[in-house]
């Protein structure tokens, strides 16, 4: 380990330290609790700044971590998500009387896990990153320990997560048995050059893909998502719905690059295409039937990972850049949506019914506008960033002679419009019910939701900067 290696991971170290300090501060200065959220957001902001100030040296720690332009891009939106989620958590945790330092510490540590994952070029590091991310999230999901649904959420995520980790670990072991190495590039080389295929390693890859499928909540590995989304504290759901998925997709992209699309084409790409189409179709169809907005967003998330996967399948410069734009767009719109949901709920033990939103569009115009923007963006209507992201993904598919994936994608978008627009319908076209729900409109929620809505529109109209950044990030990776 050289000083250069350590210098490359200073942002991660900052977050780990900040998390530790928050835990100590909670024990020794409980009066400081109201400021914990802001401190956590500030430390994530510092980490973000450091990530851009420090150079990106590429492979460090003997090649197991790749601190490259791609990692910088992914870190940026992970950290941006942490800042936003921490800010939303401030009023939320005060209302639910759970404003403890551990919450923010776990948030920061799980972000570190995601950041490690985004840089992993070695299967063991993938595992470490994933575990760091997941273990922190198990606790966060069950943070409302007095609420049954929250406990259920944490427990389900633990069971499913442990199962996925076991699959992943088993796959890694098989690969090690087959190839004698765990570095992605070396594994790929070994599998490619083996005369009649390396059965052990290929079985291992299948297990790893299943593990990744669980984390991305792709059909048929998706069943945990609705319950976990519903029960988790809403800011945690926001985090859960974007950060792990983004990081895991990057692992998948690095793997696809290492193994080269040419080698994957005959068997693996049809498999991925099946997962993508199944996720889109099932996610969108089942979302229609949901009455709880958090469950609806869970199914919507399943569908969106299906769209993003299309970009991975249509692999190349355009596809990879499209995936990154998609992840950034998805982060904005999901955090906007969950931020508003966190305000539009009276009690955490009850459902977040879409019907409870009736008439809020005229009662609470600011937050409702943000939610409506998030919905239109998730539906992929211009002029929002959600449209740009879908356009880029479908364009990548058409350019790789996969026009049928684009057609399936747009037909699924059509289905999805129905349930996204239904939220807008309740917000603006239904009268407020007799017993009007008492919703709060805390300042920080407004700030976060407003900022996300502005970004959704701004990047929808002027996507040039985001696209350029994504293209820069994938330059090192492909072609």
């Amino acid at each position, binding site marked *: 380990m050289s000083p250069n290696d350590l210098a490359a991971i200073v942002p991660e170290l900052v977050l780990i330290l900040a998390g530790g300090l928050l835990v100590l501060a909670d024990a020794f200065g409980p009066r400081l609790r109201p400021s914990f959220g802001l401190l956590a957001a500030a430390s994530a902001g510092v980490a973000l700044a450091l990530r851009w100030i420090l150079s990106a040296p590429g492979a460090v720690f003997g090649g197991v971590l790749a601190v490259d332009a791609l990692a910088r891009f992914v870190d940026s939106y992970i950290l941006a998500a942490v800042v936003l989620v921490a800010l939303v958590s401030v009023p939320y945790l005060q209302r639910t009387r759970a404003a403890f330092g551990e919450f923010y510490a776990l948030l920061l540590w799980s972000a570190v896990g995601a950041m490690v994952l985004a840089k992993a070029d070695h299967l063991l590091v993938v595992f470490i990153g994933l575990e760091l991310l997941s273990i922190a999230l198990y606790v966060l999901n069950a943070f409302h320990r007095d609420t049954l649904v929250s406990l259920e959420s944490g427990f389900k995520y633990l069971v499913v997560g442990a199962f996925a980790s076991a699959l992943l670990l088993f796959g890694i072991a098989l690969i090690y048995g087959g190839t004698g190495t765990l570095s992605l590039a070396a594994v790929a080389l070994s599998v490619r050059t083996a005369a009649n295929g390396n059965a052990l390693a290929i079985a291992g890859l299948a297990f790893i893909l299943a593990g990744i499928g669980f984390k991305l909540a792709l059909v048929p590995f998706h069943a945990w998502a609705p319950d976990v989304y519903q029960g988790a504290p809403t800011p945690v759901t926001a985090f859960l719905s974007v950060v792990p998925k983004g990081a895991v997709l990057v692992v998948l992209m690095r793997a696809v690059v290492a193994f080269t699309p040419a080698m994957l084409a005959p068997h693996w790409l049809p498999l991925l295409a099946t997962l993508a189409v199944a996720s889109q179709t099932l996610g969108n169809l089942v979302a229609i039937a949901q009455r709880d907005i958090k469950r609806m967003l869970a199914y919507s998330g399943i569908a969106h990972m299906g769209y993003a996967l299309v970009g991975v399948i249509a692999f190349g410069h355009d596809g990879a850049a499209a995936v990154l734009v998609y992840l950034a767009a998805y982060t904005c719109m999901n955090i906007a949506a969950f931020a508003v949901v966190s305000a539009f709920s009276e009690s955490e033990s009850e459902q977040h019914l879409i019907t409870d939103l009736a008439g809020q569009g005229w009662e609470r115009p600011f937050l409702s506008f943000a939610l409506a923007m998030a919905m239109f963006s998730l539906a992929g209507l211009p002029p929002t960033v959600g*449209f740009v992201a879908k356009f880029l993904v479908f364009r990548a598919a058409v350019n790789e002679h996969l026009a049928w994936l684009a057609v399936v994608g747009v037909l699924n978008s059509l289905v999805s419009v129905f349930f996204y627009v239904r939220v807008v319908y309740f917000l603006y076209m239904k009268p407020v019910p007799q017993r009007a729900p008492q919703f709060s409109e805390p300042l920080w929620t407004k700030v976060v939701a407003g900022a996300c809505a502005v970004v959704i529109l701004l990047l929808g109209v002027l996507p040039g900067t985001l696209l350029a950044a994504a293209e820069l990030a994938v330059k090192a990776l492909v072609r």
Partner: protein
Amino acid sequence: MVTEFLLSAIIFTPSVVALLLLLMPRAVIRLHRWGGLLATFATFGFALLAWSRFDPTTTGFQLKEAHAWLPRLGIGYRLGMDGISLLLVLLTTFLQPLVLLSGWRSVKERVRGYVVAMLVLETGILGAFLATDLFLFYVFWELMLIPMYFIIGVWGGERRIYAAIKFVLFTLAGSLLMLVGIIYLSFLYHGQSGVWSFDYQDMLNFAVPLGTGFWHSPQLLLFAAFALAFAIKVPVFPLHTWLPDAHVEAPTGGSIVLAGVLLKLGTYGLLRYNRSLFPEAWQLATPLFITLAVIGIIYGALVAWAQPDMKKLIAYSSVSHMGFIILGLFAGTVASMQGALLQMINHGLSTGALFMLVGVIYDRRHTRLIADFGGLAKVMPLYAGAFLITTLSSIGLPGLNGFVGEFLILAGSFGRHPVAVILGATGIVLGAVYMLSLVQRVFWNALARDENRTLSDLSSLEIAAFAPLAVMMVWIGVQPGTFLSLSETVVRRLIGG
């Protein structure tokens, strides 16, 4: 200097004002009403300025603007105007102030939202008419969806939710496939030229391969993808089922925009994109579209005849009238196409006026059933006169605008499609039947109901909103050359090339 940004000014004046209004307090209703009205007047002023700078003798786009947007993908902010888009821009900007006036009294709640939605909608419409980049066109095309959804869903009638969601899903069903079509077209262009582009001018110079069969013919597939989106918007029979619902449930202003302008986007798209980019496929599809047009003409007229609800009657009459426009476009002679273009304007004026007048009576009586009226000419003479003028314009009385358009379409199409013209002409007869019987049942007959005796005649505000429409109906009827000359060069070039 002015001309450099003139088209952008036309497009974005409404939405910039909308943004400003959103920053103003909600409760000051007068501010929002007047602000919106001034914005639409200013937009109309810019459109007139563009008309004065327009040279009808040159082909190609004028007042062009081009800025890089996503340069690596070949996407640009490109605007341009030719005779066809000028006519439609004039129609849109002319109607929009009247739309706001028609809601001046009847829209009482959520006025700011209404005005903002109308202004954003106007930006979407004008942008779609003026865009010369396929990506930009698509963005504007879809931009219309969200405000229209709100206009129908929030300020609409009883079944507004159903109508609004149906409108959204129908429109999207067509346009999403068009999006794939646009991407595919750009991909094909790249394959031939090695350059990424979404520029309409580039596509004009690109002959899309015809291939063999349907599934292996890029041109036919692309034609189908584009045509579906536009045919739903027109609407071409049998894709029209969203239209009666949307028209009937929309508030008066929404119906005027919908019938007056939004439907024209469908015919405009067919002409601008399908006709120009996929000429061989256009030829192959002509019999199909002529047949559907004739069915639409007769079917729309017959169904209109049977309607007990005035708004629904006018909605179905739109299906019939739009059939004439499709007939004229696909017949493909200079006269028939010029007639179709003029008829797009005429239909905008006369149907817009009809919806406005139905709105007038609905505001007073809260019913639109023909059976609830009768003998209104005695209590509302001005209103009856206005309705009669509009009816005569709609059914094509010589001297008013409708006659010129229908005559040009039928005369121009007769040489190539005599049977279709003969069948279509029965639609004109039927049109006279259902419209005149509407007038008879509402305005003549006996004044049977007591509620109708106390109705007040047109207010000065309503006269102000209607008068410009009446002036235009007469102007086009007497002097159609003023407007026909704008598009003649473009149409001749289109037919020739």
